[in-house]
């Protein structure tokens, strides 16, 4: 596999397609943070991560259209604290 910095957009997208969706979402989060911090620091190298981020986001969006997330609900037990006492005060 070519170095990620040397990949074309299409090569990058093909490589990303082999990753499971949950890992792609982590990458999206990481790239978003990288871009945000780079912008805050005035880092000119932000241009490259932005292009990678765009490719990742596009792919995730395509997958989510096919397999949208579902809402989850978990029912939790009520917990009890029992108080015990001797009615005769012993």
């Amino acid at each position: 596999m070519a170095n990620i910095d040397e990949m074309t957009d299409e090569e990058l997208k093909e490589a990303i397609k082999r990753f499971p969706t949950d890992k792609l979402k982590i990458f999206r989060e990481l790239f978003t943070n990288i871009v945000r911090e780079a912008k805050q620091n005035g880092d000119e190298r932000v241009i490259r991560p932005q292009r990678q981020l765009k490719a990742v986001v596009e792919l995730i969006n395509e997958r989510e259209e096919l397999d949208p997330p579902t809402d989850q609900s978990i029912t939790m037990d009520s917990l009890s604290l029992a108080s015990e006492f001797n009615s005769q005060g012993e």
Partner: protein
Amino acid sequence: MAEGNGAIYNNFKEQVMEGIFDLSTGGDTLKMILVSGHTPNIDTHTVYADVSADEYGAGSGYTVGGETLTGQDVIQDNTNDRGEFDANDVPWTSLGPLSPATPSHCILYDDTPISPVAPLIAYWELGTTATNGGDYTLQFGAAIIRLT
């Protein structure tokens, strides 16, 4: 334990009688966190700092420190001769998928006390329902905690 089963921390049992907690409406700020790969210990875990290493990091819809409970209330139930603490269900909007996707437990703590700082109240087992980017809601039963 199965998903939804829970337990109360022993430290809470002591400190609830020492006046550390105010679970009533307008009382303390109560929070629920999600953790992964966690092994609960109701004897030795007493405050948030004891469990925070297993909490998820920020991102994918999750905020470190957890979700603040709303609608908390404590009532006297004379029909069943008990006191009850309850609150609204805890929702996370568009959560995850977290990494790992399935939280092992959720932990309720009180973020208001300063001595001790953020004492734990109770935990519940998760471990089955994965986060997938949709809403993730913890539904309490008829009460969160009953004192019988």
